[in-house]
């Protein structure tokens, strides 16, 4: 789960990391009011869950409340990479001396948390990683031991951070570790962490991603999910424990298992079609879940055919078949449906579907080819 900048910085602040004064606004007049409260120059920052806001014109400096209102009006009317801007963060403007990149994330290959830091902050870190990898310092953290003070000092020394800031930097590092481990983050990033002209260290921008699998122990964070920012079908799918990602093609896919779901998409493509979605109904899905999955697929008007590919293991083919029948009775689909059932209780499943008006297939390739043909014919 991605968090907005303003949410990430709220969390930083709760853990003792200094952030600029500021608040989030949903309207231009709110933005003006916040600017009045803050006094002085403010930054108006669009709150959308994509990168590249700055380049897209979604971050502007306002010299007074009036300009803040104007710029907020303008930014709240924008779309950035297809996402409408619904909120802006109004922060006091900082006079910046130096910009640092500082983040903690998971290193899956090392199976440990890793600190990434660079004196070349404020820019796209992936660009720095590609062009100047030597400018990025990486330090692994033992997950059972946690971040130690000397690791922060090592980083400060390696970045040539002036000594007067080592103490502040050490505290920020310790606190960012607490953010990361306390929220089950997969990314806790400060970019830029700035040194201001009046010699303070401030987290000017923040980005956090939380491990969805750990949300059970963070009900406060779960509530931060901004469902405005995701496709409604994805929100709906999550309710049923389905893993769904909308794509641009016209062949709806309902598959059990993530690997098989990806493979089904790949084969559709291999045989000249375009998948409309990724959908994994998960292990052990019952009839109700399957029905929900089918409704979600069929709400996409692009879908011209649906491919069901079920290999029964935990999931029982007869349960899936029941779900399909339930959903068909309810949704009354107008597009052709290709079904392939193999594995646990497959025969029983096929028997249940015998009277439904469906195209059946034996192999993966066969099923994909039939779905592609059906979509073209429809």
């Amino acid at each position, binding site marked *: 789960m991605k968090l907005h900048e303003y949410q990430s910085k709220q969390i930083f602040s709760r853990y003792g990391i200094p952030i600029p004064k500021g608040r989030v606004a949903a309207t231009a007049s709110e933005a003006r009011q916040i600017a009045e409260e803050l006094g002085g120059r403010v930054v108006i920052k669009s709150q959308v869950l994509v990168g590249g806001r700055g380049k897209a014109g979604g971050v502007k400096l306002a010299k007074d409340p009036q300009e803040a209102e104007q710029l907020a009006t303008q930014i709240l009317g924008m779309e950035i990479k297809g996402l409408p801007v619904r909120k802006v963060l109004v922060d006091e403007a900082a006079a910046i001396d130096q910009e640092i990149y500082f983040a903690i994330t998971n290193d899956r290959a090392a199976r440990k948390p890793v600190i990434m830091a660079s004196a070349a902050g404020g820019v796209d870190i992936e660009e720095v990683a590609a062009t100047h990898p030597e400018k990025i310092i990486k330090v692994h953290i033992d997950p059972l031991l946690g971040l130690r003070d000397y690791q922060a000092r090592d980083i400060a020394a390696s970045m040539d951070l002036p000594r007067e800031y080592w103490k502040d930097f050490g505290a920020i590092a310790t606190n960012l570790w607490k953010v990361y481990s306390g929220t089950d983050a997969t990314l806790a990033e400060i970019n830029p962490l700035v040194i201001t002209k009046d010699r303070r260290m401030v987290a000017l921008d923040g980005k956090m991603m939380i491990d969805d699998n750990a949300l059970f122990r963070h009900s406060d964070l779960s509530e931060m999910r901004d469902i405005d920012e995701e496709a409604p079908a994805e929100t709906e799918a999550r309710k049923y424990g389905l893993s769904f*990602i909308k794509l641009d093609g016209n062949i709806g896919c309902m598959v059990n298992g*993530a690997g098989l779901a990806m*493979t089904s998409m790949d084969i559709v493509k291999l045989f000249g079609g375009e998948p409309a979605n990724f959908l994994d109904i998960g292990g052990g899905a019952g009839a109700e879940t399957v029905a929900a999955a089918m409704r979600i697929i069929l709400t996409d008007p692009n879908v011209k055919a649906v491919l069901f590919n079920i290999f029964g293991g935990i999931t029982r083919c007869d349960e899936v078949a029941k779900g399909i029948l339930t959903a068909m009775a309810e949704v009354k689909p107008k597009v052709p449906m290709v079904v392939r059932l*193999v594995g646990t209780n497959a025969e029983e499943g096929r028997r249940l579907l015998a009277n439904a008006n469906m195209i059946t297939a034996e192999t993966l390739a066969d099923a994909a080819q039939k779905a592609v043909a059906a979509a073209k014919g429809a």
Partner: protein
Amino acid sequence: MSILVDKNTRLLVQGITGNEGLFHTTQMMAYGTNVVAGVTPGKGGEWVLNGKVPVFDSVKLAVEATGANASVIFVPARFAADAMFEAADAGIPLIICITEGVAVQDMMRVRNYLDQKKVRLVGPNCPGLLTPGEAKVGIIPGNIAIPGNVGVVSRSGTLTYEVLYALMQVGMGASTCVGIGGDPVNGTNFIDVLDMFEHDPKTEKVVMIGEIGGTDEEKAAEFIASKMTKPVVSFIAGQTAPPGKRMGHAGAIIEGGAGTAADKVRALESAGVRVARHPEEIPSLLLK
């Protein structure tokens, strides 16, 4: 011969009284797996499956009473890390965690702890192990594979079944099938299993099923090029996956341009691995 599990496996089932635990224990026993005990805290002293399997309150008590030497875990995700720590502390040398949805920071702690104790973990979020004709540990359907000389290792569940099934259709069997799971941090990776297959006399050929995300396939390619004598055929799922999206598996995500299927296919082909365009091509590639 085979790897990891066989007729000598004395299996413990953690979470045996849950729906999935009971269902799959039934299946495993029907397959012939020697299930010696189950664990469900608070239910010690009961017997399940018509009185065939004793239930204990803790892994330690179960191991003391039954000499279990492997444990398969079916507990809910929030209890899975503790279940793995518990099995390791009780001296179980092989843990197979089927549970999906374990928090990644939990897994980093578990993996680092298990490495200290030299405990082998397979999974989590995996279908488990199948040594056809000998033992089934986990949820791989027993009837889709026959004994044979092909070692199968995979990050995916149902996709693995497809491959076993496709092999069986042409009369090819598996020595052992290992589902290593789709999580970003797990216990056993491709190289571990490839190494075991390389040293297993029964295994003559290997199928490796990868997917997008991470760099394990690339590392496996290096390993295959430098250390393996047996032929390897591969398939990589996720050619059409968009970047930045988590494709069901927590580990299946293209991040910062890294972990694409194209990269992995290229690495494997450079290592002399034949990469199938789709799973049903695998049997014919194995015969070449």
